[in-house]
């Protein structure tokens, strides 16, 4: 008999269920399958009512973040072979309300993302016809890792502070603000500071560093937040020490 593997999947339907429960499915084991392949097998062959988000199957669209045996993971990048012989427990991402089954409600994240003004606020404006802003490879290197975020929300599920305070702006949004602040073309740091340096912003972070550990794209939000804290403190001191500099 060919090998099988057991998935234990959280189910919740707000129209019919008073509370979430787990449902077990047995799927064929394939050495090169990821957890998403197993979920698609369930959807196509065992239970068409199971709901989850996915699209690219190559770890770049950020749709398929889930808790897999308690850890936040991209299900398209988590291989069955790493769980061979065990039951794989699949749940929606922690720290978000459940919309249905493995689908979370992510409105709060979308609001936080736009609150940090994640767009270029040019230091000096010029029309595209005037050509590109020059930026050396070294200047690009300063912020490059912070451009890699795919908004998969694994860091929000990993961050203990996100679990304690739902208003915390959170790792991905703060790292993205830092990305623009560090861009040699940008002059918008002060405009972003209102949210970034607020009580719900960088100061809410207790530097556990879980965000950076779980990031599938090797972004280091913890470092972004610490750098922003230092920079904000320096700005505050400068303001304090500069005559007439109080805002």
């Amino acid at each position, binding site marked *: 008999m060919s090998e099988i593997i057991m998935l234990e999947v959280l189910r919740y339907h707000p129209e019919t269920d008073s509370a979430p429960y787990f449902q077990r499915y047995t799927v064929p084991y394939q050495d090169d399958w990821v957890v998403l392949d197993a979920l698609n097998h369930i959807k196509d062959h065992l239970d068409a009512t199971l709901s989850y988000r996915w*699209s690219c199957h190559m770890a770049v669209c950020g749709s398929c973040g889930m808790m897999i045996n308690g850890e936040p993971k991209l299900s398209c990048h988590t291989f069955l072979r790493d769980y061979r012989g065990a039951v794989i427990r699949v749940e929606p991402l922690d720290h978000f309300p459940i919309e249905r089954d493995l689908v979370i409600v992510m409105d709060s994240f*979308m609001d936080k993302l736009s609150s940090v003004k994640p767009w270029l606020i040019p230091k000096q404006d010029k029309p595209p016809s005037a050509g590109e802003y020059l930026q050396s490879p070294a200047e690009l290197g300063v912020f490059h890792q912070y451009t890699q975020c795919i908004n998969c929300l694994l860091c929000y599920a990993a961050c203990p502070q996100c679990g304690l305070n739902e208003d915390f702006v959170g790792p991905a949004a703060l790292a993205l603000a830092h990305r623009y602040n560090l861009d040699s073309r940008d002059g918008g740091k002060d405009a972003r500071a209102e949210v970034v340096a607020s009580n719900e912003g960088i100061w809410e972070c207790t530097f556990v560093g879980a965000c950076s550990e779980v990031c599938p794209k090797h972004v280091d939000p913890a470092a972004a937040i610490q750098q922003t804290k230092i920079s904000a403190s320096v700005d505050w001191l400068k303001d304090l020490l500069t005559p007439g500099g109080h805002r």
Partner: protein
Amino acid sequence: MDVIETDIAIVGAGGAGLRAAIAVAESDPSLSIALISKVYPMRSHTVAAEGGAAGVIKGNDSLDNHFNDTVSGGDWLCDQDAVELFVNTAPVELLQLEHWGCPWSREANGTVAVRPFGGMKIERTWYAADKTGFHILHTLFQTSLKYPSIRRFDEYYSTDLIVEDGRCTGVVAIEMRSGRMVAFRAKAVVIATGGAGRIFPFTTNGAIKTGDGMAMAYRAGVPLKDMEFMQYHPTGLPGTGILITEGSRGEGGILVNKDGYRYLQDYNLGPPDPWPRKKAMELGPRDRLSQAFWHEQQKGRTIKTPHGDVVHLDIRQLGEKMINERLPMVRELALAYVGVDPVHAMIPVRPVVHYTMGGIHTDIDAATPLPGLFAAGECACVSINGANRLGSNSLAEIVVFGARAGRGAAAFAKANSSKANPKPASAGAAAEAAQARLRELFEREGGGDSVSSLRKAMNDTMESGAGIYRTEQTLQETCGILADLRARYRKMPLQDRSNVFNTDLIQALELGCMLDVASAMAQSALQRKESRGSHQRLEYPDRDDANYLKHSMANYRGDAAPSISYRDVVITRSQPAERVYGGAAT
């Protein structure tokens, strides 16, 4: 039914849809915009584009070069007025992305860097490492957040266009989190929903690329143009179909068969040296490379694997530093999904369905024949890609024609504002009919076919009958099977009849779109009795300009197969000639 009033409704929030929305917002901040997408914008499949975006920017290049490469690359099926406009505008739009913060890779002097790409005479492909689409999408999405007039409707699945008195006046959509239907009443509508690669079983395309917008327009009477032209990308990972960018060959990677032989030299693409060399060998166009693989397979010179035959892509000669700097995602993807570190070993690859060259017929202003309806990006066919798209033209296309669609829709809305929304308080008869169709789907009884069984049958027949090489017999067979599947689809019951985030429902609706679009592809292919670009007929191996230097126009006829009519190609200054690659290429 709830009604939402808006000036412009945009369906699809990938690169083209976002660019359209920003263009509307910038052209007139007083116009309200509803940006409707079945996924959050950053999930759109633009995200997966890797290698780059073409636009003339360096002193050693010219707009004429880009024009000629594109027209010959498309086997002269491109509309040359559209290509002219495209090559002229691409640099402006790519610079605009730079001004919005796109992290383009740079030369030492701080200017944007460019890399060679297949079928391009000069290196002109702007890139952001090998995640160019990802960076373009996120740059556009983040930039879109600063315009208050753009109101997003994330995870709304559009089912139907509203057409009244010969004019498009909105779109009907399902709010996925509640299941309720909403009528967006608009003065103009833009479709930017991407391609339809999911019609085929082995594709680089994400799950969302199911041709929804194409089907909506087609059912509303807009022809689908040149649908027989489906691009196979020569280098996908076996099993998953994950794309390995052409940029890896642009940087110097080579393709070898089971004997370690650079087989492309046997297919009018050689000689192999000097290498790298533009428009030759591994930098030939995608149609020729995918066809060469097919021939190698016939000759038994490919490598057998459990996921089909492969050849090897070898980028070891680039070295670890260059691979990490320019092709980091290629390394990550190969390591994760086939267990190969390309720094030390060759990557197994095979041709994979990648891009829908055909699409919703538009003119060079991105306007469809249906007044008030515009389309841009992969879902559209403005005819810059002809019979074979050159790699890196489509990322430029989404911004060039996305912006144009947005401006066109804005102008149309303003010019026709007084005539719009005749019954603004109600959804209107067209929307009510759409809701009735959905209700009928929910009420269907019985067992029988499921989404996954019909979808698999469609996938299988498209691969066996309408793949890289096609024949009269295989296409006839595929057309017959598709007709049967469409009939069975009309009786297929849902397995999930609930309201909240019902993905069984969404997949059922997507399947309906794919079946309609697939029949347009297969019929167009059956009736084009020549070989041109990506459309290769074994019994008609030559291009036939006398009869087929024309666009195929597939017209929807309900339950019957589409009728195919033809439309002249716009030729301005490049007369059809032989496509030449390899040593003789100019």
